[in-house]
């Protein structure tokens, strides 16, 4: 029996917890998440780069919608939980959704602290907490007017730097005498202030806000000394408070945060709490590393392992403002029992301070040069007695005996348990051993397997150096990424060499291009099979064992091992005789689900594999052929009713759509290809988010391409305008052939177009008549081999073995 796990909050901590949980106890829980924010899990640490324009929202998404679907998670976006009923074990959202739980995880995070001054609620006063805040700041920044940031801590300064980069005139008000006083000593705080001022950001320390003034909207801030600073935007970044109200209302033990034990359990054994809202060992946390540690521990407990316990450890702080290197860790207050080592280089803007107690490092502040942070952290963590190297300690690891080391050697010299990624608590040994054990060759793979550099990304350089050290010359970050682990060659090289060397079978490609495996893998074989089908349509014998199951049996496999079948409906047009035939098939084979698809056809779901040939035989008698709804090939051509019926239609869009579909069906392409033809710019066939689309206008046919409406959403680009249907067909076919010949396997047309360049595509298809005609003719030639209905082939007995078991044994027979 799966248990019901409900999570309140969809931030980074619960996201990480689920990753661990799915790894440790796959299938144990049915998960439901309520997210007060209307979106998926994204990397909050990276909001500052989004604000400054160095990253986009899409780049900081941790779990896209697909992840939730893959793991069967029900995600309520924009639902705030208003009540927890511990008696009935259920939660209720503000939209009235009630969900019961076996286990509940409260991960409500924190709320920004709003200083209680007059005017705090005026429009134009915002906090800095989530993507909505960033968007509000970006909107305000368009005015390029004056902004005030209240709070000179980590978050406030990142906001200030981002707003300044966006062109605003920024003043930071800080109540303390020195910036980031919790992480920096006054000397480093001064250097930071100087650098910010050099960038045009004004900093006022010891500034006590008395009121926010304005008439219906923010106009400025008044300090308690009477100074008035004008501004149209005020960002409050003075701190955060654990968001524990909901837990308190439910009667759970709440102190500063929701009180949990070292196993993340609240005072109710079925309720856990993690993240910024949780208080463990009397501490609440705001940096990501301890929050991820909470996530790891909660996951273990939910998976049934109650051993792991949360232990406090210091986390280094880094400021994410490009060009300012700052690192701080541990305790650096002055004290009688403490000594310090300080290095200052005013010209270079470098300040380093180590705080020692009993010859051991207890605190580190580095400004301007932070490369040795990991090493100092390591010495601190292991409590190494530094008396031997005390004289040269501050110069860093490179100076401990011998000649100065290059940065690479410094990384090489780090011990295996030195922490590389602070956010995720990943040490050097874990990274290097995983690279070796799993044969990782790219940064993305290392991130996937170890999580190192997968959060704030400041350790990316270190991780890349470790990859170079471990892999030697095999790692070249700028090199093309290979098709798969079976070869060093990228897709483009393989395609080029197939043509250049005249390679016409998969074994020939693997032999000549020195494949490292005997018969490839599930990544390269389908790609090679496509390349060969595309390049040698008349000579290559399609290798069905190198095709994905859907293309091998010409139906779509479903989660339970049954298949779905979609017959072609030209241009989305059907009639009573076809519908009757479908209805008869549904009855005869007791097909459990009949669904209309987005591509204007009918999907029959839940068909047993053994029944497929018989289903196709009946459909075939009614004139249906395969809709290739499973193919990396031409899928549908969606149409509207056009000038035949519609009072706005300018051309016969239905007729053109059917003509295109009849011309192009059966062709294989690098990834699926979906088309649409709309009869007028009202665009009822939604042609402007398709791989290729046509918008009919009075003067002819506007051809569009490179749209997307799946994982990515993207409007199409205009290829050009042509006058006649014949021309439209020729241009669309030529474009498809160009994509067929150049696309990388599984690369959708919009990604190919981005790589090749829109202008180049327009030049070859719209301007270069000779090229266009050559593409067109190669497509037509290829179609003479491709337009064979795979269903009727199988009805006549092809690949019989695919559709029935080899044997049925043990039911009523004795062993030999």
């Amino acid at each position: 029996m799966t248990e019901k796990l409900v999570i309140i909050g969809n931030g980074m901590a619960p996201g990480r917890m689920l990753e661990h949980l799915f790894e440790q106890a796959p299938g144990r829980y049915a998960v439901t998440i309520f997210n007060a924010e209307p979106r998926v899990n994204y990397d909050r640490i990276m909001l500052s780069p989004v604000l400054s324009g160095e990253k986009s929202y899409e780049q900081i998404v941790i779990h896209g919608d697909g992840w939730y679907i893959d793991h069967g998670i029900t995600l309520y976006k924009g639902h705030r939980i208003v009540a927890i009923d511990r008696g009935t074990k259920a939660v209720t959202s503000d939209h009235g959704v009630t969900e019961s739980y076996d286990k509940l995880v409260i991960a409500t995070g924190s709320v920004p602290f709003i200083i209680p001054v007059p005017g705090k609620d005026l429009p134009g006063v915002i906090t800095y907490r989530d993507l909505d805040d960033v968007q509000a700041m970006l909107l305000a920044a368009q005015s390029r007017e004056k902004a005030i940031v209240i709070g000179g801590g980590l978050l406030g300064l990142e906001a200030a730097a981002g707003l300044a980069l966006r062109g605003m005139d920024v003043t930071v008000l800080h109540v303390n005498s020195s910036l980031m006083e919790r992480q920096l000593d006054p000397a480093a705080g001064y250097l930071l202030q100087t650098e910010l001022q050099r960038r045009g950001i004004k900093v006022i320390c010891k500034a006590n806000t008395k009121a926010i003034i304005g008439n219906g909207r923010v106009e400025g801030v008044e300090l308690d000394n009477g100074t008035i600073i004008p501004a149209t935007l005020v960002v409050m970044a003075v701190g955060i408070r654990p968001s524990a109200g909901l837990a308190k209302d439910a009667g759970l033990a709440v102190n500063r945060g929701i009180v949990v034990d070292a196993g993340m359990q609240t005072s109710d054994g079925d309720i856990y709490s993690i993240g910024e809202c949780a208080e463990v060992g009397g501490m609440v946390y705001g940096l990501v590393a301890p929050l991820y540690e909470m996530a790891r521990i909660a996951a273990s407990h939910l998976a049934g392992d109650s051993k792991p316990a949360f232990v406090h450890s210091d986390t280094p702080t880094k400021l994410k403002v490009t060009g300012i290197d700052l690192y701080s860790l541990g305790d650096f207050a002055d004290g009688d029992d403490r000594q310090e080592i300080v290095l200052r280089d005013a010209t270079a803007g470098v300040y380093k301070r180590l705080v020692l107690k009993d010859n051991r490092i207890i605190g580190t502040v580095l400004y301007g040069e932070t490369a040795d942070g990991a090493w100092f952290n390591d010495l601190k963590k292991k409590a190494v007695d530094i008396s031997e190297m005390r004289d040269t300690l501050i110069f860093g690891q490179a100076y401990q005996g011998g000649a100065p080391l290059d940065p690479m050697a410094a990384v090489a010299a780090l011990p295996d348990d030195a922490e590389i990624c602070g956010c995720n608590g990943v040490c050097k040994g874990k990274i290097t051993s995983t690279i070796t054990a799993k044969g990782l060759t790219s940064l993305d793979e290392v991130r996937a397997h170890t999580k190192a550099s997968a959060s704030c990304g400041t350790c990316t350089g270190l991780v890349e150096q470790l990859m170079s050290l471990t892999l030697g010359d095999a790692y070249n970050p700028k090199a093309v990424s290979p098709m798969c682990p079976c070869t060093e060659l990228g897709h483009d090289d393989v395609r080029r060499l197939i043509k250049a060397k005249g390679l016409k079978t998969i074994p020939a490609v693997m032999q000549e291009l020195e494949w490292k495996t005997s018969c490839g893998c599930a990544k390269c074989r389908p790609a090679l099979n496509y390349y060969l089908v595309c390049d040698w349509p008349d000579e290559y014998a399609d290798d069905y064992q190198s095709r994905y199951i859907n293309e091998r049996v010409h139906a779509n496999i479903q989660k339970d091992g049954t298949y779905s079948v979609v017959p072609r409906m030209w241009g989305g047009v059907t009639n009573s005789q076809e519908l009757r035939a479908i209805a008869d098939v549904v009855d005869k084979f007791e097909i459990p689900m009949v669904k209309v698809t987005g591509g204007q056809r009918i999907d029959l779901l839940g068909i047993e594999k053994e029944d497929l040939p018989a289903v196709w035989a009946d459909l075939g008698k009614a004139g249906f052929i395969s809709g290739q709804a499973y193919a990396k090939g031409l899928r549908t051509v969606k149409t509207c009713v056009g000038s035949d019926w519609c009072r706005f239609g300018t051309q016969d869009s239905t007729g053109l759509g059917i003509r295109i579909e009849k011309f192009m069906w059966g062709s294989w392409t690098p990834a699926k290809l979906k088309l649409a033809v709309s009869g007028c710019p009202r665009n009822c066939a939604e042609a402007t988010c398709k791989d290729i689309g046509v918008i009919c206008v009075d003067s002819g046919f506007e051809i569009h391409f490179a749209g997307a409406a799946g994982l990515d959403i993207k409007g199409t680009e205009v290829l050009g305008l042509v006058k006649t249907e014949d021309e439209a067909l020729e241009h669309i076919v030529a474009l498809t052939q160009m994509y067929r010949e150049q696309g990388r396997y599984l690369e959708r047309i919009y990604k190919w177009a981005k790589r090749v360049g829109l202008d180049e595509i327009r030049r070859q298809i719209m301007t270069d008549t000779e090229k266009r005609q050559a593409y067109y003719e190669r497509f037509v030639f290829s179609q003479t081999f491709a337009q064979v209905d795979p269903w009727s082939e199988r009805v006549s007995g092809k690949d019989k073995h695919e559709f029935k078991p080899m044997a049925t044994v043990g039911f009523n027979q004795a062993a030999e």
Partner: protein
Amino acid sequence: MGWYPIGDISDIPLRGARCVKTPQMNIAIFRTGENEVHAIENRCPHKGGPLSEGIVHGNAVTCPLHNWVISLETGKALGADEGEVRVIPVRNEGGRLSIALENVMMVAAE
């Protein structure tokens, strides 16, 4: 334990698989590029995907549902995933294949 004949190696495509039904479970019979024959439970340890429908490469198969790679020799998931399926003993006598099933199945036998 008894040996049950299931057919000839030529019934299985090279680098392909066929399915054998038994009272306890479905079994996937694989024929590798090197003409080796392996039998494992036809159920991916991840989400129960039919392994006999996967792409066969080397001595492994990639599950069609979510691309887990399962070793045909050990039944264990390869790469970053963890899990395993039952391996069923298979005998190849000059192309004639039989698999060993546990005696518990004899209950159903006549």
